[in-house]
């Protein structure tokens, strides 16, 4: 189990503004593999380094009640002038294997399949070869938690398959905390997810939810940039049919409440990102495209909520299909923007409903 309490981290002293990580409270249970998601610079690698004990936080603490590996990654871990064998020997000695050094070397040599390159200096290795060596090296030790920072991203197909097989073999004994932008491998190896955003961390029991949240936000940022010059009325969905307007403040509070409901263990992120803000406002000012407004969702029971979710899913699919058709037909730039905005709105509505439904499911006792 890894316990993170009130963690703060920044790299530049004396300026209060740029916390990389702000008040992170997380518990990673034993045996649960976790995927770390977030934009570039969101602090994924920093969090991993902190968990590994490479770095110390400015405030807060991390309790490692498990044997934790070093962060396997593209950078670091090997000294370039020494051969692969010498580096492996060094790491085995550091980890206290005086008598077992040879067995570690043998197992790494077998796993990494580097051939004669094993006795060449590390600086002559390609990034894929480094990754193989690093991966094989950490697998030679019996850690409870393995940390991976894009370690598998540069490997070839066979190596990726081998790596994930090796992890699945020891899934009962060990877990994994990994940073990856390849969602296939996250879905394959992880159960839970952590989404890092604006210095905060959101815990998701299901990695798919974490990926969905990450997608929603990154799409919002994309379309937020796209529609910055367009007027809000231009972004109206084409299927808008008579629905009432929602005051912006009201919609915001609903969005916050439904957002916090899905983050059981993690702190509520402050919704301060301007891109997200702008999107919420846009959403609120639009007439609802299909069915009920967001604040009406709270009043619904489970069956109605499921129905609403299906409706919103259908609306989302329809908007997306329209966008695809016009994109293949060579549409104007302004229509593109409108459609992008419409897709974002539809997706947000879909996610709001889905999050609420999932939160309800969790609160309700199992029906058996």
């Amino acid at each position, binding site marked *: 189990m890894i316990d993170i309490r009130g963690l703060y981290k920044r790299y530049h002293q004396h300026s209060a503004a740029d916390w990389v990580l702000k008040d992170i409270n997380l518990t990673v249970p034993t045996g649960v593999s976790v995927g770390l998601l977030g934009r570039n610079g969101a602090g994924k690698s920093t969090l991993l380094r902190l968990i590994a004990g*490479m770095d110390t936080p400015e405030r807060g603490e991390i309790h490692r009640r498990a044997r934790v590996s070093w962060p396997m990654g593209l950078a670091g*871990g090997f000294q370039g002038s020494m051969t692969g064998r*010498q580096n492996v020997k060094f790491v085995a*000695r*550091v980890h*206290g294997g*005086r008598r077992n050094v040879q067995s570690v070397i043998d197992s790494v040599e077998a796993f990494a399949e580097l051939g004669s390159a094993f006795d060449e200096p590390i600086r002559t290795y390609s990034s894929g070869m480094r990754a193989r060596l690093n991966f094989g090296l950490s697998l030679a030790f*019996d850690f409870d938690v393995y940390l991976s920072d894009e370690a598998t991203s540069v490997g070839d197909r066979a190596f990726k398959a081998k790596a994930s097989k090796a992890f699945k073999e020891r899934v009962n004994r060990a877990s994994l905390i990994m940073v990856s932008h390849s969602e296939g491998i996250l879905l394959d190896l992880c159960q839970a997810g952590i989404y890092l955003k604006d210095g905060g961390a959101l815990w998701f029991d299901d990695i798919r939810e974490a990926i969905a949240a990450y997608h929603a936000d990154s799409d919002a940022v994309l379309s937020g940039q796209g529609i910055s010059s367009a007027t809000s009325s231009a972004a109206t969905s084409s299927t808008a049919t008579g629905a009432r307007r929602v005051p912006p403040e009201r919609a915001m509070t609903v969005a916050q409440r439904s957002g916090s409901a899905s983050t059981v263990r993690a702190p509520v992120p402050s919704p301060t990102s301007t891109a997200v803000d702008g999107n919420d406002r846009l959403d609120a000012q639009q007439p609802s495209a299909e069915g009920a407004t967001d604040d009406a969702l709270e009043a619904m029971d489970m069956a109605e909520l499921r129905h609403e979710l299906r409706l919103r899913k259908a609306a989302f699919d329809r908007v997306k299909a329209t966008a695809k058709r016009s994109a293949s037909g060579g549409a104007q730039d302004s229509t593109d923007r409108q459609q992008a905005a419409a897709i974002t709105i539809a997706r947000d509505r879909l996610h709001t409903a889905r999050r609420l439904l999932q939160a309800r499911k969790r609160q309700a006792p199992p029906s058996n």
Partner: protein
Amino acid sequence: MLTPDASPERSSWEVTRSVWYAMFMREAISRTMADRMGWFWMIAEPMIFILIMVAIRSFIRSDGLIVGAPFIPWMIVGLMGFFLVREGMMRGLGAVGANQALYAYRQVRPVDPVLVRNFLEGMLRSLIFLLFIAGAAMLQVDLAPDNALLAMSIWLSLWCLGLGLGLIVSVLGTLIPEVGIILRMMIMPLLILSGVIFPIHNMPHWLLEYLLLNPVVHGLEFLRQGFFEGYQRVPGSSMTYFWLVTLTCLALGLALHLRFQQRLIAQ
């Protein structure tokens, strides 16, 4: 498969010991084998240096004999002692940066390579000195210490001074690259100011007061006394002063490492 720790948890001392062992093995190999002709230069460098200095001295003949010690052994002892301090300092300068990749393992701290390198360097320098003494004996030059106990204790003291300077320089030189440049510039004048090549006995008193601020002078004078029974030390040289400076350097160096550990790792 290797379980990282045989017992549930290794003690801090056990972890540190295995880091030092691993680091020593790697440093020993890269120091002696990785450089081309690493061994050769280790012995050839001081030898060539001595030959050049002897040639210059016999050419200039600026001042008289050294009281109580033959000239060439006197200079060899001084050079060896000076090199011990110099190498302790200069090896420390690159130690932190050269092992940057290894701080990925949380067991390894920036202070470890500095300590290990200094230990290794001291061992090598001692070995080379012994080789020189043996070589001199074969050439019928008396380089054996008259007071071996004093010579050895002073040798260890100089080693400690090198370690202290190495600890300080390893932090400052990594955080401020200019420190390294200035140090390399200072080494050559320091060789002369420490009285390695020319004796400083005959310097005027007002200048001697300043020269004696340099702790290396004190160490070298006592080292020479250990080697040559009747040697007249420079008046005012004292081991108390030497050890005060050494302990200050050690404490300051360790404190700097504690204070800037995170920044050294994150470099």
